């Protein structure tokens, strides 16, 4: 027992050092976001002093140069509606292709599963050209595209779970006079809830952070920039000139994620484990 305590003591010291190391990059941008833009490159690891302290100037610059609140709004819009659409439509599709046995449904299942291993680069050029010519290059269009891209993983996970639900429950509902829609929303959907939360978390993390799809489809010259696109836009064009605004923007981009993480930590960690095991 004494030996375990010793080992634990050493381990805790090592882990604390690691925690500091893990937090350093975030602390680093936070520190520099409060310094005048010309002072950052002098001594990047020093605390802001009376002379170098810039207050919220960098934040004001970062926000106005990228229209950060607009980007936040579009990121939120696209993420919320995409995830909602993915949960609603793919769970219905997964239910249909699991319960109706035919050549068409098994072909569909394999196609959805196949899409999971295809890298985005394979379809990015043709997909963005198609989106432009069919007027999908706007936030609602993005929701449609995310539904299409997210379908593979979501259907794979939903149908894996639906297979384990005993048919008797649904048959009883049908005998009671429910049509398939009533059966699905009244009986199946509530059982699917844990899987739906897992799918929602995995897809939300992906859509919120995705850069290439919104960049290629919506582009830099529209007001619909999402946060990753806005970050790339500011740093790509102003990076060397205004380091302060850039540091502030990086801090601002992390804040929503940290808040989301700290409030839903339990679901996120459970979702990630469940998703990894099933995926």
């Amino acid at each position, binding site marked *: 027992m004494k030996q375990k305590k010793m080992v634990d003591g050493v381990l805790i010291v090592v882990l604390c050092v690691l925690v500091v190391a893990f937090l350093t990059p975030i602390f680093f941008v936070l520190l520099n976001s409060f310094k005048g833009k010309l002072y950052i490159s002098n001594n990047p690891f020093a605390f802001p002093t009376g002379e170098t302290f810039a207050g919220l100037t960098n934040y004001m610059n970062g926000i106005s140069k990228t229209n950060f609140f607009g980007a936040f709004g579009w990121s939120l819009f696209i993420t919320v509606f995409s995830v909602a659409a993915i949960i609603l439509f793919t769970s219905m599709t997964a239910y249909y292709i699991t319960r109706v046995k035919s050549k068409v449904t098994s072909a569909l299942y394999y196609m959805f599963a196949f899409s999971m291993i295809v890298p985005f*680069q394979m379809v990015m050029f043709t997909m963005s050209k198609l989106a432009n010519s069919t007027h999908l290059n706007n936030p609602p269009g993005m929701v449609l595209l995310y539904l299409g891209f997210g379908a593979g993983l979501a259907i794979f996970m939903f149908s894996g779970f639906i297979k384990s639900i005993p048919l008797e429950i649904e048959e009883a509902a049908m005998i009671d006079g429910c049509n398939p829609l009533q059966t699905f929303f009244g009986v199946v959907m509530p059982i699917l809830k844990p899987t739906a939360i897992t799918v929602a978390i995995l897809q939300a993390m992906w859509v919120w952070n995705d850069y290439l799809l919104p960049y290629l489809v919506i582009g830099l010259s529209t007001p619909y920039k999402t946060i990753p696109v806005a970050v790339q836009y500011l740093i790509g064009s102003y990076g060397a000139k205004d380091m302060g605004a850039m540091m502030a923007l990086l801090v601002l981009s992390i804040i929503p994620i940290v808040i989301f993480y700290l409030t839903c930590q339990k679901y996120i960690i459970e979702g990630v484990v469940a998703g990894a095991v099933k995926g």
Partner: protein
Amino acid sequence: MQKTLKRYFPIFVLPTLIAFSFAFIIPFVMGVYLSFCKFKTITNAQFIGFDNYIKIFANKDFINAFGFTVKFSILAILTINIFAFALAMALTRKMAGTNLFRTVFFMPNLIGGIILGYIWQQMINAVLLKYETTLVANATYGFIGLVVLMNWQMIGYMMIIYIAGLQNVPTELIEAAKIDGATSWQTLIKVKIPMVMPSITICLFLTVSNCFKLFDQNLALTSGAPSKKTAMLALDIYNTFYGRSGFEGVGQAKAVLFFIIVAIIALSQLALTRSKEVEQ
């Protein structure tokens, strides 16, 4: 029941199928076809056979990117999994503060690749400032930077999966090993690691696929500098498409090749997992 449900195809399947066609099916089929064409926009495509595929190897960009990707992936996969497993071992000893450590280590995983890339670009440049150099001065800096960044991002994620695996190892097994006089090292090698094999397979799969297809972090950290030496496959394909006019066909051919490489890796991993499952 099947028969009634069957009539509901338009409601249950059609919305997803339409979205899936726009996002995946049509672009995929067009992509395969266009890799055999010369084109600038999609409407003026001209069939030219395998010319694009031959042109891929006209310069060394793709081969170099492939080499860099493989080198990076091997080192990153090994380090991420070893560190994650070690952390998982440390955090399954029922010590005080375990939850706090877990929270901190997992957090970087939620931050997007573009933002992570720029945070690390600034950090590394700040360190290199003392030696009066920058991240893009030497390809080795970019390589090491990318490995460190991916470790920072993925260790927590893999650690969570390993923790779940280790917690499922029955305590009786470990106690039995102790009674038989096994040292803690022997218990680890002979009992714990074989028992968490499913978690190891999952983590390897996730790290391989994330590292091999990496784009955002690569773009933000070095964008391939100096002179394309730190460009990975996904970035090289992107640059071929959008960097030079007239090379869209070559870009698409590279993308098809990339897809085939990724598919081979994924399928062989799947086959490997299957064979392991039979053994257990």
